[in-house]
């Protein structure tokens, strides 16, 4: 019994040490960051390429610099995506497309993070979009900047991380169907690019 208790205590201590080594970076407006996040979605169709942009990203990124791993959860406000054309934005939010009234956000939650080389990590996670959850894997670039006089002068609080990457997404995999009338104007596969910042303070 005593041995089991000691083992349990040791495991708890290990877990606490592991947690203390990792850092939690908050992402988004609520985190009080002095910069905005950017997520873009690009459709490359016969008629035109269009790119929707949103700065409505929030969540947390946890980084264990010593072990070169981490985890995270990011939430994207789909209703805030701006394609540059108000009528197209309206169509995109409608029930025929993204149905943002029913599915207001897309959520990405990591399941594994493996260090690849330099600042590049291979991230696997679950993306929930339009009510469908699927696993995706992509390479991301994560740059960590320790708190310094320079970071404080730039109005960041604590350590700062910048995570950039991109992946492709087939709309039909997530139950988004392109109406006949829009074929040729919207691509079946879109490219998502993200450039997000987080801070510990």
């Amino acid at each position, binding site marked *: 019994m005593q041995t089991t208790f000691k083992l349990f205590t040791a495991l708890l201590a290990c877990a606490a040490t592991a947690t203390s080594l990792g850092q939690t970076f908050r992402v988004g407006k609520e985190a009080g960051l*002095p*910069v905005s996040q*950017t997520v873009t979605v*690009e459709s490359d169709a016969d*008629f035109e390429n269009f*790119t929707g942009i949103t700065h409505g990203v929030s969540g947390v990124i946890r980084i264990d610099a010593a072990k070169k791993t981490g985890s995270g959860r990011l939430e994207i406000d789909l209703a805030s995506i701006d394609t540059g054309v108000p009528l197209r934005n309206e169509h995109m939010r409608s029930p025929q497309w993204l149905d943002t009234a029913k599915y207001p956000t897309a959520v990405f939650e990591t399941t594994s993070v493996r260090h690849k080389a330099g600042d590049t990590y291979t991230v696997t996670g679950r993306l929930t979009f339009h009510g469908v959850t699927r696993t995706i894997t992509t390479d991301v670039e994560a740059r960590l*900047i320790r708190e310094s006089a320079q*970071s404080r002068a*730039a109005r960041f609080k604590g350590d700062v991380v910048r995570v950039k990457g991109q992946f492709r997404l087939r709309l039909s995999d997530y139950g988004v169907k392109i109406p006949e009338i829009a074929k040729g104007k919207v691509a079946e596969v879109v490219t998502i*690019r993200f450039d997000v910042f987080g801070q510990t303070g």
Partner: protein
Amino acid sequence: MIRVLGVVGWASIAVLVLTFGLERFLASKAVLAQRVRLPDANVEALFGGEPTPIGSPQTYVILDPKALLPDKGPGGVALLDDGCLQREGSYPLQLKTVEFVGGIVRWVAAGLAGLCLGNRWFLLRRRARLQRSREGS
């Protein structure tokens, strides 16, 4: 009827020529460019001044070069300041859109011209034949 066919047929040929001319004009203003968001001072101070690309490089028809940045991107691609485009409320036309619409207009105009002028020619021939047969009898 013959007159209407003639007007529509020649108007279609005029549209064909004008479309071709407009396409050439817009193509002469086209530039391979990358829309970018310039880093704000805070990001630049910590992570450098590299701008964030918005989408991939496209051939845009640039009628007002105000949003073109003096710097070039990788491979000599021109850079378009997305912030400036948003302030100006301008959404640059892409050459592929011009070519897509131009192609449809050209096919429709050519088809219409062929149909109208062909029918007109057929009707004129038939009328001439009828006149000749009337004169003969």
